[in-house]
């Protein structure tokens, strides 16, 4: 048996190389993983949205008299919405930049996205204090509970996204990404778009409907 060892070792090495490099064509593992993770997050928000709609259907008037007009779409929250939507654009420009190998463009755009994300969070936090001041909290009945639960978890996801943007900003600045290898950027951008889409839905449902 041992006499065969050298041939086997070579054969084995070749087999391993083939297996390792032979990830199927198409999207890479990390990106597929991120897509699936986003799917799970979509389902999480679905549960919360279902609870929102059921609660809203069970409580008339909606909003309750005491909170009538408190969720004004034409206020600071609209600015925050525009900022978040813009950040999706800058994020996508960053992806296109790095796909072209334009490292500096990538860093610039991701940096802007990162800042816009933080701006959104700060505005959301300020908006919360305004609402608290007007007596609307998690504990002020179904209206408050559903509002703060939905936007709160969204904000938490934005925060997670901001952290991820920070990481790829750092990695980009230290030259870890190239046109051929930037899976993390693609994955984070997908997540960021998801966070934005959820906000568009939230804003429409909570503020406009």
């Amino acid at each position, binding site marked *: 048996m*041992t006499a*065969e060892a050298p041939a086997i070792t070579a054969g084995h090495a070749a*087999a391993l190389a083939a297996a390792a490099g032979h990830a199927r064509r198409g999207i890479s*593992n990390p990106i597929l993983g991120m897509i699936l993770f986003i799917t799970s997050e979509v*389902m999480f928000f679905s*549960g919360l949205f279902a609870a929102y709609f059921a609660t809203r259907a069970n409580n008339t008037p909606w909003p309750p008299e005491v909170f009538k007009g408190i969720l004004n779409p034409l206020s600071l929250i609209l600015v925050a919405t525009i900022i978040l939507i813009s950040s999706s654009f800058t994020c996508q420009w960053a992806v296109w930049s790095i796909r072209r190998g334009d490292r500096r463009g990538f860093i610039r755009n991701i940096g802007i996205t990162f800042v816009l994300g933080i701006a959104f969070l700060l505005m959301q936090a300020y908006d919360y204090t305004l609402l608290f001041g007007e007596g609307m909290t998690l504990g002020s009945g179904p209206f408050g*509970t559903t509002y703060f639960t939905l936007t709160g978890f969204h904000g938490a996801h934005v925060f997670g996204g901001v952290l991820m943007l920070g990481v790829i900003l750092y990695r980009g600045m230290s030259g870890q990404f190239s046109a051929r290898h930037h899976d993390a950027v693609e994955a984070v951008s997908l997540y960021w778009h998801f966070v934005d889409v959820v906000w568009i839905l939230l804003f429409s449902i909570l503020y406009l409907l």
Partner: protein
Amino acid sequence: MATHALSPAVPAYRGGLYEWLTTTDHKKIGIMYVINSFLFFLIGGVFALLVRTELATPGIQLFTNEHVYNEAFSIHATVMIFLFIIPMLAGLGNFAVPLMIGAPDMAFPRVNALSFWMLPLGGLLLLAGFLTPGGAAAAGWTSYPPLSEKLAQSSPGPGQDLWIAALILIGTSSILGGINFLVTIFKMRAPGMTLFRMPIMVWTMLVTSVLVVMATPVITSALVMLYIDRNLGGSFFLPKEGGQAVLYQNVFWFYSHPAVYVMVLPAMGMISEVLPVFSRKPLFGYKAFIFATAGIGALGFSVWAHHMFTTGAVFLPFFSLMTFLIAVPTGVKMFNWVFTMFRGQLTFSTPLIFAVGFLTMFLIGGINGAFSAAVPIDFALQDTYWVVAHLHYVLFGGSVFGMFAGLYYWFPKMTGRMLDEGLGKIHFVLMFIGFNLTFFPMHMLGIQGMPRRIADYADPSWNGWNLLATIGGFVIAISILPFLWNVFISLRNGKIAGDDPWEGNTLEWATSSPPPPYNFDRLPEIRSERPVFDARHGLVGHGGHGGRDEEEAPMALEEGHRDSQGPTA
């Protein structure tokens, strides 16, 4: 077909506690999943014995504080579902799937390790409830509000909050595992293994993982909302504040029904591997089986409200229809299994015996479930011991028996040793008898009117059945002993297994037992769902690059003897 390990031989498992604590090898992680889950099986079993001891005779004997009885059955079920069966099947899948698709590991090995380690932590959190003043969660594993809310007459203590935290942690572990399985299965199959050449075990893990990724987050949302109600002034489920109690049930069961398929599909996958190997025939209707599995997964999302038929808040005809329909693909699978055995050549090794046990028990469980699908009958049976009988026939008679089939089948691959057949048979016989003794009488109890989740009962006609069920429970407990003893002695002194002790069909039998860390030296050609069978019978080459396989003549068809070394040239 012998495999040639590297020289000098790489030890299969480097020992050492540090190695195991920091491993990202799916095989080791899978084994840790199995050990951890089995520990929780025993813990959950102890709670079951406590419950059965109380119910053996009328009157309160053990749980003079009846609140603690409620804790006992709540934690029993929670442990069995979330800390035993779901992770056990995920763990066996963790061990088997990369091997069965010819991959060197899971797609995300570090996430794999993280998924595992969240489990003992979650278990500790859950059980820590017993150390708190109000005791552990006591509102049932379903924890319906308002009983699970933080009101004086409900669940004011932190035990319920620990339950919530534990389940969120365990659910996250599950979701990460599901993502890992899906990427592994879609992206890391060996060349030649198309989707329709994957072993059924891999298919069931695929569908299970889809369910996990899509359904588990929904219960996370229910748990989060309950937590907000309890601790942050929320009013999702509190009727007095504009909330709805039934909302929780809908969100909860939207997950918990697909969850039962998460609990059974991998076990079905295991017996779908065992039956063909020990019948010496391919699985009957491989493609139909896959479609049936996918059908069950899809339909499984449409039946959740059959757990809520008596709430008066459900569109009954729809859910009744979907529940009846899901019996069809399940039946297809049943027939396919039986016809795999039909006209085969059955060898009654322990894995096959447990697989046959699965078939009978799951048949009963499926049939008694059909009664509840008929809504008016469910009005009589819901929340009685009939449901307890049903759920245990499918989850214990089904999943646990299937799990044991898988354990006995893959133990040689995991450890390099064979388990003792005699002890295995004793285990089966005792467990089969004990199981039926425990749970068949519950049909009688349910239809005669005994509700579930009661610490005591007053109808004397229920005394005999309850006593019988308790005796059966202890027989089950005793049956575990030969299994544990078997594992203990076989690990030290079991017969060396060799690569392929069972004449298996699938790729895990194409490498050593246990496999090297990188899993395969080389792979046979993959031209069907039974690559090792094909290679053994000369239907394909042994594949690989270089190597000496051309010198090994294809196995002659007439050679049928089998020894623990596997057929060798």
